């Protein structure tokens, strides 16, 4: 439990660093570290498949995409963030934290316990992923296709006569 709280705090810390750091490469890397923490949390929550996807896809692939974009847009110069936003952040963060703790504390005994739905014995992850869910997987495939076509359309070369 203590380790879980430490991991969750690290996750929040890296997320805050990703937002506050001025260097974009450093913030992309701290975002990857946050994903790594989230993946380890998933492993400790007994969800290894989600953890593997989180670490390999989100911490790996998305970081590569971010760094590629930063490298491609680096020549455009830095954007000056407003100083007020960075100064106000700690105040907003602490206020939000206090409200969050109060709300969750008040929710703790009011939310009725959810009825547990025990899983059928011997059911495997693959069966749940492929057999219990059917049509939304088609949607998932379509989302990937739409993403591929969107990127292709965005990088389309102009015709010579345009």
């Amino acid at each position, binding site marked *: 439990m203590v380790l879980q709280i430490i991991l969750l705090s690290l996750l929040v810390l890296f997320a805050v660093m*990703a937002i506050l750091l001025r260097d*974009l490469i450093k913030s992309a890397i701290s975002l990857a570290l946050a994903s790594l923490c989230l993946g380890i949390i998933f492993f400790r929550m007994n969800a290894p498949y989600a953890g593997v*996807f989180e670490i390999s896809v*989100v911490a790996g692939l998305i970081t590569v995409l971010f760094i590629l974009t930063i490298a491609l847009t680096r020549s455009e110069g830095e954007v000056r963030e407003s100083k007020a936003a960075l100064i106000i952040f700690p105040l907003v963060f602490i206020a939000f934290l206090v409200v969050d703790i109060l709300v969750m504390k008040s929710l703790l005994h009011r939310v009725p316990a959810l009825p547990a739905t025990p*899983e059928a014995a011997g059911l495997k992850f693959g069966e749940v992923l492929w057999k219990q869910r059917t049509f939304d997987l088609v949607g998932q495939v379509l989302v*990937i296709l739409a*993403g591929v076509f969107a990127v292709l359309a965005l*990088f389309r070369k102009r015709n010579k006569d345009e």
Partner: protein
Amino acid sequence: MSSTWILYMAFAAVLLGVGVYCLLAMRNLIKLFIGIEVVSKGVSLVLLATVCAKGNILLAQSLVITFIVVEVCLVATALAIIINITRHTKSLDVRKLTKLRG
């Protein structure tokens, strides 16, 4: 089992808050997108935490995997849009995208 998921919800709410603050306050397009990523981390934590309370971990995992796939498509498309915007406006500043303002 009883109160653990409240802990996850509390941390996920912090992630959501930090991400929304980034979306409201920052000006760099890539920073804004990092904010969206932080929000999506909070959402996947909530997805796994709530279903953990019911004990149905396999369904939660498949939902999280679906969410991650959608997230990757979102990232690829949005980063392509950001590259195109920077080629047009020669800047990563979101305030320069005011051409559509009436």
